[in-house]
């Protein structure tokens, strides 16, 4: 059986980094929107 362990690890690192990176991007976007909305409502008051 060929030793392809490093490629297996590399493959799953790429998959996890991209998926969790996108989820993290959405999470940060949500926090940014909430913060800006709060700032605007304070400005309005």
């Amino acid at each position: 059986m060929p030793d392809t362990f490093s490629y297996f690890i590399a493959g799953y690192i790429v998959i996890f980094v991209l998926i969790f990176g996108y989820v993290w991007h959405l999470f940060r976007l949500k926090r940014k929107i909430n913060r800006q909305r709060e700032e605007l409502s304070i400005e309005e008051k």
Partner: protein
Amino acid sequence: MLSENKTITILSILAAILFVFAFFMVIFYAPIEVNMGLVQKVFYFHMSAAWVGMLAFLMAAVFGILYLVHKDLKWDRLLASSVEIGLLFTVICILSGMIWARPIWNTWWTWDPRLTTVTIMAFTYIAFILLRRSMDEPSKRAQFSAIYAIIGFVTVPLTFFSARLLRTIHPIIFGSGGVDMNLNQPMLTTMFISLGAFTVVYFALLLQRARLMQAEEALMRLRLQTEIDADWEDQADA
């Protein structure tokens, strides 16, 4: 009836559980293929990513048709979210495929019909995102996006059938006689669990992204209104 927020939360939790479960199946349940070794296990998430990419572009075309019929911006938000997620999974598919190809084909990349068509598909939707960002007027942008998503969908069957109709070195999983690749039962079970998990992940991300897009638009309207109010106050003071 569940509220929209509750539905999204439940779907997200389910997606996370299924994703972890699918990964555990890949690691502990699916056997190691004798000719390729461990790298064959990349195939389960590689194929699932390819499936979600194509499903997302199909859904984008469907949302495009729904927008053109109903002229409701809700469909435009779903369309844009679907393309974004589809592109993410297409990139995952391409990169994981390259990593698999290096030890198996002895090259990172070759201009095989399947690899070429999937690249064309990815660039079609990268162009979509760039063009969409350059448009400000919401209804014009939605109209453009709907038409682009419907026409752009041509690249999906082109990619899917390229490995079946043209001479290719890319493995075909589902051929005319069912499952063509030499997969045993545990491998097939892992593959279908991964496909199911990625499908649920897609719908969870789609709803989350569309909801955030709606919040972004509401914030933009609120900001505009605040600026207009401030201008009026300035003029009144003057």
